[in-house]
């Protein structure tokens, strides 16, 4: 597997500039002769498709949603970072770069991160010009807030709906190209395979989710922007449709899957209320600015929160981390919460949460101030739980939220399969082992608006301009394989529903490959996954037919892929015998119980090569070098 | 010009024109009501007012010249209003051909649902009313046509409304007007984009007030004739 990252030479500040000059260009008159396939219409996909269309390429853009605007990016709440330094509080490109590398616990690629920080400036300009109604101050200038423990205010936001507004901006740019005829959007089309010929990406196979028709589409380049795979845990903050299918099928066709075990757990979500729970809802992290986190000191305490006296409450984050307290980083607060619940201190009717209490701040600041800061979040919480957070402390618990792992890409965002580009959450590139708040939106848009359109062009400049067709046998074979898989799913006709298997897999992954991992648990998981997978293929029940809208069939295909992919996750977690960022191996802790990195042996990207279902995948390594940020240990004591 | 055509072509443009023409008719109603209320001052005041309308603008305009110009405008306004309400209604009917098994009305006011039917009622009433009070075709033999120097409107009014049946028809029509304006006056603000944070809250009370005043102003006549407050 060729893992040349193609990082341009020179000082880090000049790499991108120099690279932009070095890249080959396509003559404007020839651009229209190239066809580019973009899968996904989230921030990354929509912005890439729109910009490629604008440059003059012919673009086909696919999404399984009924509209391009429904991609999961729409759900992002908090905000987007940019090193604009509008607040004059000492922010700079280098500081954003530095924070991101450090936040990723030194497992990301410096050159990519630096470019991300550079391009972050253009993103805000672009979004504002598109009409994204970011929050403003009375003077009419853009407002910022500090987010996720950052020491500067660099987060731009649009109420609690930043992702929605940014996605609408990208979607509208996309629609403009649709109107101009440069981009064609195929909605309700799911990509079910990548077509590779002579080691080069040549197109994709899709299934029309309404008619069931399996078709292939050829392109000079294929861009995947299909989002993350947190739903491997069944319960996560991700939309129900998020899945690993597109990237996993590409991995099966030869693309390396990088760092699959880096999955982020978000500390402030509403805990599950029952077995029927279908997904978890994120409550903004900003709540931790004024809420105090505690559990009863006595395990199994049945009293109501208000009846537990002060001296019988354990404000454990304040106790463990006196200086950061309730604002300790995501991974640390998450692990501590799990520890409390595991030791019997959990609260709520299922004993599966910890309290986030606003009593003190209401007393100190008054109800109005709290209402002004968090009113809409409190309402949202009340809508879901029926409890009023002004009166009763909120209950929160960590939940899977974001996946740093993804398909391996080089500096040009191209995978090891030439012609296959991967953007946004679907790639692995910029966040290392842990992602800072408000940086996923930034990365998706950086990739889509500012990086891929140029690097894809650079690739196309070296590809013959001949029209592409899907006449070749590889396309027929791929179509047939997809159609066969569909009929196989329909033919099992067992006695268990798709969700039953998904829930079973999710529980297993959450227990052993979730917030905390250890060798025994991972080995057990590696044994159990194939077993569930086998039962799935003999016991699952998918009703209906393959030539109409069939939601169970869609789900079944995605769960089948999770059942294969989960194994790579476990392999990755097992072989990464260190703790770093969100990957926490209980064997590797500092004396204070924090993640202990092993830079000597593990300063590399793990890239997995698929060798067949059930076969052990092969590990390849891309070494990571840190020239601009000194390797150091995080401390939040 | 092509913009005006575009206005006509678009559903919103049609509704804007409906609002304008509706507004013209409300203006007429206000004036007509004012004229009708002269009945309380007796035959003299009423008839001379009616006569005045006919000789208005003389000698520059011919006899009834102003009246005919006025009638033309009113007729055109009505025609536009009715035509567009027909066209837009058809568009809306076609927009949902299968209804709901159950549907809760979430409309701002009850009257909005009945606009089309109260409108038709008003149109039918108008035809009837002109044949009744202006041409006398449907009037009892007591109808007296105007002469060049005199109008007998008051006489026609009172004799035309003494029958309880007639009074009832007028009453029902006035209820239709009440409902049509209840929603319509508010609707004009909305359609013509007349909303501003400062007075948005007043639109609805204003509409209710206007429709009730017009309703009371008009029904007071048949009621007074029936009860004998206004007699010949």
């Amino acid at each position, binding site marked *: 597997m060729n893992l040349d990252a193609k990082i341009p030479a020179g000082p880090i500040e000049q790499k991108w500039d120099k690279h932009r000059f070095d890249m080959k260009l396509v003559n404007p008159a020839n651009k229209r002769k190239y066809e580019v396939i973009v899968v996904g219409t989230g921030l990354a996909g929509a912005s890439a498709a729109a910009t490629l269309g604008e440059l003059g390429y012919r673009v086909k853009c696919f999404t399984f949603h009924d509209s391009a605007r429904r991609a999961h990016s729409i759900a992002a709440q908090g905000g987007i970072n940019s090193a604009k330094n509008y607040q004059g509080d000492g922010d700079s490109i280098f500081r954003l770069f530095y924070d991101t590398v450090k936040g990723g616990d030194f497992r990301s690629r410096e050159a990519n991160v630096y470019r991300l920080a550079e391009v972050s400036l253009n993103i805000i300009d672009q979004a504002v010009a*598109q009409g994204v109604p*970011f929050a403003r101050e009375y003077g009419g200038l853009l407002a910022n807030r500090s987010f996720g423990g950052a020491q500067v205010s660099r987060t731009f936001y*649009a109420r609690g*709906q930043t992702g929605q507004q940014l996605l609408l901006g990208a979607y509208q740019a996309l629609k403009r190209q649709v109107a101009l005829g440069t981009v064609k959007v195929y909605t309700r089309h799911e990509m079910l395979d990548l077509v590779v010929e002579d080691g080069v990406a040549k197109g994709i196979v899709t299934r029309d989710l309404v008619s069931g028709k399996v078709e292939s589409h050829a392109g000079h380049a294929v861009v995947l922007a299909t989002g993350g795979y947190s739903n491997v845990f069944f319960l996560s903050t991700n939309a129900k449709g998020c899945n690993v299918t597109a990237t996993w099928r590409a991995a099966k066709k030869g693309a390396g899957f990088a760092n699959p075990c880096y999955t982020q757990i978000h500390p402030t979500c509403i805990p599950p209320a029952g077995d029927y729970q279908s997904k978890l809802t994120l409550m903004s992290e900003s709540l931790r600015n004024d809420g105090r986190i505690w559990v009863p000191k006595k395990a199994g305490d049945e009293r109501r929160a208000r009846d537990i006296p002060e001296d019988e409450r354990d404000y454990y984050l304040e106790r463990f981390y006196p200086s950061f307290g309730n604002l300790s980083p995501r991974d640390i607060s998450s692990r501590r919460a799990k520890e409390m619940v595991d030791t019997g201190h959990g609260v709520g009717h299922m004993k599966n949460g910890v309290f986030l209490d606003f009593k003190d701040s209401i007393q100190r600041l008054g109800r109005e101030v709290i209402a002004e800061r968090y009113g809409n979040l409190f309402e949202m919480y009340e809508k879901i739980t029926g409890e009023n957070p002004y009166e009763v402390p909120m209950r929160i618990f960590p939940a899977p939220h974001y996946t740093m792992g993804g398909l391996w890409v080089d500096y040009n965002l191209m995978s090891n399969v030439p012609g296959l580009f991967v953007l946004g959450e679907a790639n692995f590139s910029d966040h290392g082992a842990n992602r800072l708040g408000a940086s996923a939106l930034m990365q998706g848009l950086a990739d889509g608006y500012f990086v891929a359109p140029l690097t894809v062009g650079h690739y196309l400049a070296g590809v013959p301009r001949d029209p592409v067709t899907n006449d070749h046998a590889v396309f027929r074979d791929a179509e047939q394989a997809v159609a066969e898989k569909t009929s196989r799913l329909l033919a099992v006709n067992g006695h268990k529903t798709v969700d039953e298997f998904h829930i079973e897999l999710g529980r297993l992954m959450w227990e052993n490959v979730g917030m905390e991992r250890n060798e025994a648990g991972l080995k057990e998981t590696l044994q159990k996954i194939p077993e569930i997978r086998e039962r799935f293929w003999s016991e699952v029940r998918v009703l209906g037919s393959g030539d109409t*809208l069939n939601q169970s069939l869609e789900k079944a295909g995605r769960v089948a892929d999770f059942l294969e992919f989960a194994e790579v996750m476990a392999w990755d977690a097992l072989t990464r015998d260190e703790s770093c960022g969100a990957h926490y191996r209980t064997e590797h802790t500092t004396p204070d119980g924090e993640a202990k990195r092993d830079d000597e042996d593990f300063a590399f990207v793990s890239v997995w090569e698929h060798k067949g279902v059930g076969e052990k995948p092969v590990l390849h390594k891309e070494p990571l070098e840190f020239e601009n940020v000194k390797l150091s240990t995080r401390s939040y004591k | 010009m092509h*913009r005006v055509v575009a206005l006509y072509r678009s559903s919103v443009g049609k509704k804007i024109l409906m609002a304008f023409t509706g507004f013209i008719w409300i203006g007429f109603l206000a004036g007509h009501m004012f004229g009708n209320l002269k009945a309380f001052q007796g035959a003299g005041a009423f008839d001379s007012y009616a006569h005045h309308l006919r000789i208005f603008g003389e000698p520059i305009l011919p006899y009834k010249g102003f009246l005919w110009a006025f009638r033309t405008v009113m007729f055109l306004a009505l025609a536009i209003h009715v035509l567009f309400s027909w066209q837009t209604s058809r568009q809306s009917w076609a927009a949902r051909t299968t209804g709901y098994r159950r549907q809760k*009305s979430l409309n701002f006011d009850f009257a909005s649902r009945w606009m089309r039917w109260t409108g038709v009622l008003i149109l039918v009433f108008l035809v009837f009313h002109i044949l009744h009070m202006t041409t006398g075709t449907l009037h009892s033999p007591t109808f007296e046509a105007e002469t060049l120097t005199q109008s007998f409107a008051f006489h026609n009014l009172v004799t035309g409304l003494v029958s309880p049946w007639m009074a009832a028809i007028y009453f029902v029509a006035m209820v239709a007007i009440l409902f049509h304006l209840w929603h319509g006056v508010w609707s004009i603000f909305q359609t013509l984009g007349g909303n501003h944070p400062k007075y948005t809250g007043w639109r609805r009370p204003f509409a209710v007030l206007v429709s009730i005043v017009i309703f009371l102003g008009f029904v007071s006549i048949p009621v007074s004739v029936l009860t004998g407050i206004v007699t010949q």
Partner: protein
Amino acid sequence: MNLTLHVWRQDGPTAPGRFETYQAKDVSEHASFLEMLDLVNEDLTREGKEPIAFEHDCREGICGSCGMMINGTPHGPNKMVATCQLHMRFFHDGDEIWIEPFRATAFPIIRDLVVDRSALDRIIDAGGYISIRTGSPTDANSIPIRKRDADEAMDAAQCIGCGACVAACPNASAMLFTSAKVSHLGLLPQGQPERWTRVVDMIAQHDLEGFGTCTNHGACQEACPKGISVDFIARLNRDLMQASWKAAEPPVAAAGGGG
């Protein structure tokens, strides 16, 4: 709690539909409405009956995928929530619930409760954007925007494109959606150059899609999960009037190369 559901089932766009009655047993009051449907679907599958098709994704009221008529109101009896945010504690043991798809000629039924809302996307195609080129804009702070205008634009921009306004409107009009889009862009300085053509073109597309005419019923605002106000419809009307008064400019052919 136990509930009786009457659910609209329809196998395909042209197939005739019918109501079918199902029992939802032991539903927790903490479950969401969609989780209740999940349970029913699990039972149906085990019984060998095809599960009810309904659209959903984010399940937190932002993607706009979900949406159905619940007892005659789009998104159910609660105000300002999407179907996915409706919780079963608002129902009572023994309740009968009628569940129907959003109905409008412009929203053809695909299956059961799933309808095709791509007409809304095509309204955006007709001009619901600001024409700028990637990478060309000036610094984001170079044009200050009054906070009031920015906030009002955001009020309009919150629309999630769910189509409940159409479902609720007695005329099946999509005017609330269209007005939200037109107002969002029209309130910002960046949206001014295309303001007048945008409103004309988007309304034209709205009509072409087969939506009805707005007669100011206001049901849309009541049904809208984001509380989009009909004041935006007034604003849209005003814009259209102004657009027709502005001198007509001869249409310019779109620049080549995908501009």
